[in-house]
Structure formats: C-alpha cells, structure tokens
C-alpha cells in the first residue's frame, strides 16, 4: 500500500536543527514525510507535544537534541534523557509501538545521520501502518 506516514520532528535549535540545515545545504535527500518544529532545547519538549501530535494525526514523532554533554544549555538534554524513557513506558502501556516515538542525538555536523534516521523511521512507520485510536471493537 502507498501509505505516507506523517512524522513530526521536534528539533533543538542549536545542534539538531542546524544538523538538518546542513543536511539541506549538502543536498542529502530524505523522505519528505517529516515536518520539523524548532525548539530552543530538547529539554523544552513537553510530553504533551508528543501526545498532541498523535491526537492531531501524526503517525510518529522524532525528537532530536544535542549529544549528551554538548547541550548549549549545559544540561537541558539530560532532562530529556529523564523524561523520555518514562513517557515511552507509558506510551507502550497505551499500545503505541516503540518505533513511533524516537529520541535521537544529532549534532550540527551530523546532517548525514539525520537523513538516515528520518529515512529509517519513515520506513518503519510505513510498515506499521497509520496511527489510529483503535479501540479494538465496533462501538463508542
């Protein structure tokens, strides 16, 4: 089937967004399924953003931040490191597959890496099929 996943990307301004920019300037191609939103730091990402994305029809969410230790704000991404696993644990409890939500470290120099992450994730989600609030039954 030719299902085109919608993937939300939330990227930190300093490393990952710049990495995605580099990806562009060096004309690396990756699937257009990802839509990028910029935040100052991956530590700004509220779990609400990810849930909101699914509510609004995203099929996957990719969070990118500076590598641990490289955070522009010294430790912002470590807060992400704390929140993300707990959020993932809850999402899996709610039946959301692991592949749909990813956290990756992408530095400003890793345009290549960004492209491959996006391509890989797009394929994985294409295989999973669309996200839907499936209640497994017929009614309500």
């Amino acid at each position, binding site marked *: 089937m030719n299902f085109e996943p919608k993937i939300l990307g939330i990227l930190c301004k300093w490393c990952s*967004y710049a990495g995605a920019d580099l990806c562009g300037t060096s004309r690396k*191609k990756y699937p257009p399924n990802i839509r*990028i*939103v910029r935040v100052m730091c991956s530590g700004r990402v509220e779990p609400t953003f990810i849930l909101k994305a699914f509510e*609004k029809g995203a099929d996957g969410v990719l969070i990118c931040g500076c590598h641990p230790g490289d955070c522009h704000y010294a430790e*912002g991404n470590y*807060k992400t490191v704390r929140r993300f696993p707990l959020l993932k644990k809850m999402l899996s409890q709610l039946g959301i597959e692991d592949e749909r939500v990813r956290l990756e470290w992408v530095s400003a120099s890793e345009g290549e890496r960004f492209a491959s992450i996006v391509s890989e994730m797009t394929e994985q989600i294409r295989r999973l099929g669309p996200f839907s609030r499936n209640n497994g039954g017929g009614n309500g």
Partner: protein
Amino acid sequence: MSEPRIGVYVCHCGSNIAGIVDVEEVTKFAQGLEGVIVARDYKFMCSDPGQEIIKKDIQELGLNRIVVASCSPTLHEATFRRVCQEAGINPYLFEMANIREHCSWVTEDKEKATEKAKALVSAAVRRVIYQEPLETREVPVNPNTLVVGGGIAGVQAALKIADSGHKVYLVERSPSIGGHMAQLDKTFPTLDCSACILTPKMSLVGSHPYIELMTYSEVEEVSGYVGSFKVKIRKKARYVDEDKCTGCGICQTKCPFKVDSEFEVGMGKRKAIYTPFPQAVPNIPVIDREHCAYFLKGTCRACEKFCEVKAIDFEQVDKVVEIEVGAIIVATGFNLFDPTPIYQYGYKRLDNVITSLEFERLVNSAGPTGGNIVLKDGSTPRSIAIIHCVGSRDKNYHEYCSNVCCMYSLKFSHLIKEKTDAKIYQLYIDMRCFGKGYEEFYDRLSEEGVYFIRGKVSEVTDQITSEEGKLTILAEDTLLDSVIKLPVDMVILSCGLEPQLDADKVTRLFNISRSADGFFLERHPKLDPVATMNDGIFVAGCCQGPKDIPHAVAQASAAAAEALAMISRGKVEIEAATAVVNEELCSGCRICNALCPYNAIDFDEEKKVSRINEAVCKGCGVCVAACPSSAITGKHFTTKQIVAEIEGVLV
C-alpha cells in the same frame, strides 16, 4: 491581542526553492489560511526589493504579523526581524518557514515537496498568530573587570584592559604572579629567555595604576550576572604588612627554617618566610604557617626582630573583600601531569628520571644547579633520552595531545646540546610541529644531530646496566619495526598538560562547563572560543585547553577585547525569550528549582512561589516543560505557540 493581519511571503530563492516547490501553489494555499491578509511569492525575499515588498505591505495593508517561507532562520531570521522592526512591527511577531534546507533541498518529489512546504507555511502562520511582542532588554555594564589567575594569560589580559584605562582586579592564589612561564628557561622556537620577556610584564602589572593585584588570594563566591557580578575574594593572611614591606629580603636570610621550594619543584629550598622566586611580583614575602617555627612551636620570630619597617604581623587574619565587576576572565592555567602512576617509567623510583618541568629548572641558570645539567651524583650525563607524550595521547591517562611537548622536547635537546655533548634520543609517537617557525626548528634540531626514534617506550629500567649508561630504555622502533634497548644516563619525561586539579570547583564557582577532556568549555570551538555558556565570563590560556605561550597570549588578548567591547558599549543585551513564572498559578511545588543550569530560579519563601531571574535566564525552556501547573511561560516558545505549530504541520 489585536486581530491578526498576517502577510505571507514565499521565496523562490532563484531556483533553489522554486525548482522543486510549486511556490505559486504554496502562495495560493497560504492566501486561504486564517488570518492571512496577503500572500506573495518573489524571486529573492532577502534582497532589498524583497524586503521592500514586506515593508510596503506592512504600511499599506496594516499587517501586524509576518511569515516568510524561505531558507533556514539561522540565515535570515535576523534580516527579516530587522525588516519588521524598520516597518514598525515588533521583530518577535515574525516567523519563518524553512522550505529550503528542510524541504526543497532534501526532496526530489516535486508534489510531496510542495505539500510539505504548505504544511510548514501553515505551521508558521498558526504559530505567528500566538506570538507576542518582546522587548530585547539591556543591562548596564560595570566597567571593572576581574581576571582570575596570574599566569601569562592572566597577566596579558589584565594589562590589555588596564591599558585602556579600565580597572582590573587580578587575583592569583600563590604569593606571586608569573605562573608556569616564570619557571621556564627558554621559550621555543625563538629560544628567547622566558624570564626576560615575562618579568617586565609582571612588574608592569605590579605598578599599573589600573590594576589592583591580589596575590595569595582566592575567589570564594560569585553572584549576579553579566554586567554586574558580585565577587567575594579571600585574601589569605600573609603575616607581612604589604604596605610596610620594602621587599628588602632580610627576613628571608634570617629565617632559620628551610623548606622544599614549590617553584623549584622540590629540587631547591626556600625559607619558611619567602617569596617564590627573586623576581616575584609583588616582591613581598609570605610566612608559610605549616613550616614557621613560631606558628609550630611559639618561639623564633627572627624575621620580626630583623625587619626594620616592622612589617611582620603574626596577628594577621584572612580578609574577605567583595568587589563588583561587569566581566570576568578565567585564566587559571593547567597542572603538569604527574608521571608517578606510570610505574614502568620509574619516575620517583629511579634516579635521573625527571619531568620536563624539573628539567626546566635544572637547565635554568637561576635554578638549583645554576644551569648545569647534572645527574644526581653531580656528574654530567653522557646520554639523555626524552620520552614524549607522557600522560598524553594515552587511553589510560589523557587521550588528547598536549600540544607543547614535542616543541619543548626539541627545545630541551638544543639546550642540552648547548651545555653538554650528551647523546640525545627523542622517543616520539608523532612529531607535531604545527606553529609558526616550529617545523623549521624541528629541521634545525635534526641537523644538530639528535636521534629521533619513533616508538612508544615500554619501560625504563636500571636492572640492565652497561658501560654507556645507568638506565636502559626498552622501546619499539616502529620505523625499523624492531625492539630496541637504549642505555642512557638521564631520562626526561615530557609530561602533558592537564586541567588544574580543582577545575571542577572553579566551574561550579563561575557556573561554566567543562568539555570531555576536563578543560573549560568555550561557547563555540571556532566562532566563540573565549566566551563561555555564562554570559560575561570568558576563558583564556591553558584552562581552556593545552596551548603554547603565543596562543595563550593571543587568547588572553581576545578575552580582553571581549570584556572591553562590553565595557565600551556600556550595556549588554540579554535574552528576550526568557521564561517567566505566573505567580497566579505557581503552587510553589518547587519542581523547577533544581532544574535551571544557570541557577536562575529561586523560591520566594514569603509568597511561596518560585521566581525566575530573567537577567540570568537563557530561555532554554527546561523549567517550562517541567512545570506541572504550566505556570511557567517560555517567551516566544510558549506551549500555545508550539502546539499551534504542531497542529499546523500536521494539517
């Protein structure tokens, strides 16, 4: 919030965007979005005529929000914000959709690229509706500067600033400024005498009207923020009245107690009352309580008896002074790697295995041997091995290259050649002679008949003795690809440079960070090499990473320039997109308190709410995302704005 009147401008960027994205269609799409008054496309929005279009529309159509769909904001956000400002719209009411780097340049499929561009535009449009005007705030800059560390870097920075007629506090923890450079003999590659070029600078510092020198002092506390730091400095008791002391030195001659001299790295002695070295600045001795007979036994006071100006004061106590400065330059230097743990090299175990710094003193005419290169038994060595990369480029100790060892090792061979006819072996991994005149120096030394052996030394032993030497070096010659045994009389370990042992304490003190190697982290390795993550605090010299004197001096001058730039402007802009606590909603749960990397959040015990010091806040938003009450707003990245953007990209 006034009814949004949005203008959307889609850039062709020549064919960069238009070649893939159907800009006309994107423009048509934008036209249909809620709140959009006008949508246009143009060849180059960033060009003057492009900018004119926006200004004209703002004036004629009364637009109050602008979206430009073009390249990455890192390129032109500033440009278009300026355009808005000039046309009378607050720059924060502008939003950019990146349809080049994130779209046309990374996608081949024209249809999908156009779809994506639409999504990005709709996101920007929805977001901009919720954006609010922000004022970039400025704070005044206190014209005084604090320089921490009196090595060559600190000295250089202090002088540069002071010469411009601005006050500098120079704080050094040892009794004299000068740092490691004062211990060196000659300097590579020019071989001019270290003392000769350093001491004039030191005495300048000592006498400079704009420099307040605080030696034997340490920074204890730093508060405030860029432009107005408050710093507490502890002046340790010298037991010598600085105002009375004439520096005659009689006290030192009369003092009956001898102690190993730190300056001579244990190879020479000093008294219990001492100045580290003859050219010390200030030339005022200190009494070292640990070894002073009076402090130990309660008797002696010889120095006091002989001091004509009555400068000795056993009653002196530490003083804590508080100063206010606008900028701080941290130049706390390095620590020489201690090779004792590398057992197989025999340091401290075998006679005549010495460190590079010990050799600097040994070869220094003002040093313990008057500059004679001798073995422990007083005889002159006939062969000397210099082992490179001791503690550097070594997974077990420091992975990084210490930058200077190759060059000072070469310098050593030359100095040895000058004074003895000993055979010299350089055991190196790679020769790194990258600086100006360095390679030439290397060539010159090769001609002087120094043996260069490429290979890492596996062991230094005194078990295999032979005619030619008391020590034997076991190493692999990777060029000959054979194991070699070198009999030598003396082994010099070219130790690497490592962060000061208390560097972590210093990072906490100044709230700056360290890179993986433990040296202080600059804001950007290339474009911002002296600033730190903490505005108004700069780094210079080896505390930021191993470097030779010219680089340390250069960086110090750069740091001085940074500080002076702030001073001469008189004010600094601070982040406008900060976080603020809504006290109407804050329950005082204190979740956010420990999260701020800049300690910008404190708790009001009276009102039981948390508060953010906007002057210190950098707007990372970590606290915003953590607040369970959503009581913290991250300006320009509010939850409303980001959620609107998310809804927008997912249309």
